């Protein structure tokens, strides 16, 4: 991975001309560039293991919450149906695992195929792209989601890989790159008065 400080810095404020610079297109003129200066250098590079692990942990937290929430919802519905004879149901572990795996696959699939991001990836400024740099095809996204949900620890292969690729990345020729989501410009305080 190239050092951040070795990469050319782009001017603040997005006033750079619309041209190719060092193989990377800079923002068009008059377009505000909300990416911090320190982060511009590694946009488009493959992410490392720490960033991806944090993003994955966030995704797992989301899916765990949803899975447990499913069980809680089931308990509430059960209580509403039979409040007198209510007893706290217990699910076997495999039910949680199957449910969690399904949720995770569905979650990763839609996220990668639709925007290239899950919630964790969005939080950490990551995007999953194919070998051309485009968003994943639905089938590729489904395969990758099923694979990653089944063997999540294969993610850590990117720490050993010379190209920061995990096993699913190698098999499906995908990449997880730094691609911070660009937020819409926040209006200044004075614009509230003008409005």
């Amino acid at each position: 991975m190239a050092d951040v400080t070795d990469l050319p810095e782009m001017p603040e404020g997005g006033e750079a001309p619309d041209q190719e610079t060092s193989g990377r297109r800079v923002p068009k003129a008059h377009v505000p560039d909300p990416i911090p200066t320190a982060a511009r250098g590694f946009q488009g590079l493959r992410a490392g293991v720490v960033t991806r692990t944090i993003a994955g942990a966030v995704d797992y937290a989301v899916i765990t919450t949803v899975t447990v929430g499913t069980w809680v919802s089931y308990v509430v519905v059960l209580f509403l149906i039979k409040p007198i004879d209510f007893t706290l149901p217990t699910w076997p572990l495999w039910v949680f695992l199957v449910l969690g795996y399904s949720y995770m696959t569905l979650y990763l699939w839609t996220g990668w195929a639709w925007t290239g991001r899950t919630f964790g990836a969005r939080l950490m400024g990551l995007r999953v792209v194919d070998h051309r740099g485009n968003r994943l095809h639905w089938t590729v996204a489904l395969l990758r989601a099923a694979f990653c949900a089944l063997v999540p620890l294969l993610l850590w292969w990117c720490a050993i890989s010379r190209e920061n690729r995990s096993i699913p990345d190698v098999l499906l020729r995908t990449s997880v790159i730094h691609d911070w989501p660009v937020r819409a410009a926040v209006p200044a305080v004075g614009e509230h008065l003008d409005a």
Partner: protein
Amino acid sequence: MTSTDGTAPQQPAALPVVRRRQPALPAAVEAPLDVALGAAVVVARPVVGAADSVVRSLAPVAQSLWALALRPPLVPEQLTAGHALDRLGERGRAVRTAAGQDVVAISDDTLDLLVPEILVRVLDRIDLTSLVLQRVDLERIASELLDQLDLTTVVLEKVDLHAIVTKAIDELDLTEVVLQNVDLGSVVEAALDSMDLNEVVRTRVDVAGLAEEVIDEVDLPDIIRDSTSGVATVVVDGARISAVSADELVNRWIDRIMLRRKARRTDAPGEPESMLRGGDDG
């Protein structure tokens, strides 16, 4: 005041108060006349002196003889010259008294006719302005006048102040006058020192209404939302950059353990959307 007899040139500092006129007699007449007057004075003076001495010495005798002639002894009073003279005197006195009253009346009429004419002629021959300037203590008069007059009342009663002020304001550039002649900083400072601004605002400004108007115009929840969003953005950006630094650290250690000498190839195909677009992807 000077006269026409040629004394004016002897006072060069004096103002030409009286206008000069030509002499009344020609020079050819004046010289013989002066000689004749001189001769008359020389001749008349000893004669008058001698006559005066004679009169003084004979006066007591003459008075006694005159009294005896007026009232001789043994002559009835009604037949004496003195009595006749007294009668004549009484009649004359009565006539004089009556004539005096007529003279006074005639004199008034005469003066009414003469004085204006004379005054005009006198004033025509006098430079009254110069005369006043030379002879009158104007400063003292003005001072006394001002002491006796209530100028404020006089001005208020006699002067159309509104017209004067309006005319002055029309002709003056008051802004320029104030800017050039007034120390506005000192004025404002003095005004602020003498005022209790808090009290002024409390009594004259509808603070509650103003605050309500400002709050109505400012979308306060939106501002708070934006501020909160800004803080969250800073925190998230910091976490992302810290994670990237941790990535580099881990990669460096692993590469060192695996005895790698070349840097990792992390360039991915394509271009990140964050560098292509200015807006969010939703």
